[in-house]
C-alpha cells in the first residue's frame, strides 16, 4: 500500500489525525478515501486552484503524456478521453477540463502493476482544453493538453 500513499488524490488533503493514522498504518487507504474526499481540488473553480488542490504547485509540459480525445465531440455530455503516461514511475493521473465550472474531473492512483493509463468519459459544457496531469514517484508533476470542440445538438439520431 505504500505506493498508494503519497499520490495525487491526497494532494494537500491528508492532514492531521487522518494523515497520522494513515502513516501509522492504522487506516487503510480505502478508509481514508471514504473519509476524506479532496473537496478543495474538486470544488476549485479554475485550473490553478484545482492543480493546487491536488498538490501540483508547478508542472512541466511533457510529450510523454498522450491524450486521446476527439477533436470535435459528438456530444459534450459524453466525451471519451483516454490518457496514457509514458513517463517512468508515474503513480497518479488526473484529468481536467479547463472551462468546466469545476475543472478537475477525476484523479487516480496506480500501484501493484496498474499501468498509468485510463479511459473515461467526461462532461464538457463548452469547447475547452482537456489537460492531463501525471505525478511521478519522486513528487514531480507533468502536464499535457488537447483541445476538444463541443458542438450544438441535433435531434438524437
Amino acid at each position, binding site marked *: 500500500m505504500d505506493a498508494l500513499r503519497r499520490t495525487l488524490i491526497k494532494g494537500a488533503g491528508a492532514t492531521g489525525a487522518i494523515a497520522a493514522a494513515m502513516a501509522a498504518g492504522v487506516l487503510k487507504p480505502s478508509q481514508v478515501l471514504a473519509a476524506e474526499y479532496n473537496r478543495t481540488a474538486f470544488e476549485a473553480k479554475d485550473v490553478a486552484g484545482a492543480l493546487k488542490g491536488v498538490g501540483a504547485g508547478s508542472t512541466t509540459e511533457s510529450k510523454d503524456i498522450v491524450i486521446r480525445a*476527439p*477533436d*470535435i*465531440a*459528438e*456530444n459534450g*455530455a*459524453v466525451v*471519451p478521453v*483516454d490518457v496514457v503516461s509514458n513517463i517512468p514511475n508515474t503513480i497518479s493521473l488526473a484529468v481536467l477540463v479547463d472551462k468546466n465550472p469545476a475543472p478537475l474531473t477525476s484523479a487516480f492512483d496506480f500501484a501493484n502493476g496498474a499501468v498509468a493509463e485510463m*479511459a473515461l468519459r467526461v462532461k464538457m459544457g463548452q469547447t475547452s482544453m482537456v489537460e492531463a496531469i501525471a505525478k511521478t514517484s519522486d513528487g514531480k508533476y507533468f502536464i499535457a493538453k488537447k483541445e476538444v470542440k463541443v*458542438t*450544438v*445538438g*441535433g*435531434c*438524437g*439520431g
Partner: protein
Amino acid sequence: MKKRIGALVAAAAMSASFAVLAQQPAKKPAAKAQAKAAQKAPDATTADFEKFRDVLEEDNPAELFEAKGEELWKAKRGPNNVSLAESCDMGRGVGVLKGAYVQLPRYFADVDAVMDAERRIAHCMVKYQGFKAEDLAKKPFSSGNYTPELVSLTTYVAGHSRKMKIAIPQKHPKEKETYQIGKEIFAYRAGPWDFSCSTCHGEDGKRIRTQNLPNLSTPEGAIRAFQGWPGYRMTGGVMHTLQWRMNDCFRQQRFPEPNYVSPSITALLSYMGVNANGQVYKGPGIKR
C-alpha cells in the same frame, strides 16, 4: 385486455383512414440529384464523429439496461406472478429471443395482428402477467432517472439479435398491408408546418445541425435508422426505444403524438424495417 384490443383495433382503423388521406407525397427530383452529390463528400465533422463511434460503442451504458431487462424478463411478476420467459412468444416460440428482434414487426396469429417488439412485450405483460395496459401507457418513455420497464425489456430482447441480419417477414397479407400503411403514413403531410416524415427522411443528404438525416426510403438509409435502437442517448443519459424515436418525430413535426404502442408506429416500423431487410443489426446502440 379486451378493452386494450378494442383500443388497438380502433386505432388501427384510424391509421388506415389516416393513410387514405396520404395520396400526394412531395416530389422534388432536382433537389434529390443535388443532395446525392452532396452526400458523396461527408464533411470533416462527420468523419471525426465516426472515429470515436467505435470507442463509444465498445463500452455502451446500454448494457446496464440490458442487464436490468434480463432481470425483468426472467422474474415472476405482475398480478399473475408469471415470467415473460415462460409465457411470452416473440415470434420464435415461447421464451425464444435469439433473432426475434430482427424479425419484428411480424404477424401474430394469437392476436390476428402485426406487432413490433415493444408492442408485443407490452401485450405479453398484459395478457400473461396481468399488468394493466393503461398503467404501461402512463409514462412510457425514459426521462431523468426514470426508465420504464418496457424500455429495459425491449433492450434485453434486442440484445439477442446482435450481429444478425434483419429479416422482417412480408408473407402474411397483414404484414404486407402494414408495410403499405407505414409507407403512406411516412408520406402523409399535415400539421401547422405541412410536414411529413419524408420531408426530412425521404431524400439523401439532409441534415439537422451536425447530424445527417438518413433517407428511410433506401436500404442504406433505413438501416442507419434501424441501427442503434434501442439506444443509449448521450443527451440526458437515458435509454430510448424506437417507440420513443417515432413519437418524437411526430412531436417535431408538430403532429399530435400517437398513443403508446400504437398500430401506426408498428406500421412505420414495418416500412422502415422491411426497407432495411438483409442488413446486419449491431445490437443496442449509443446515440447522440
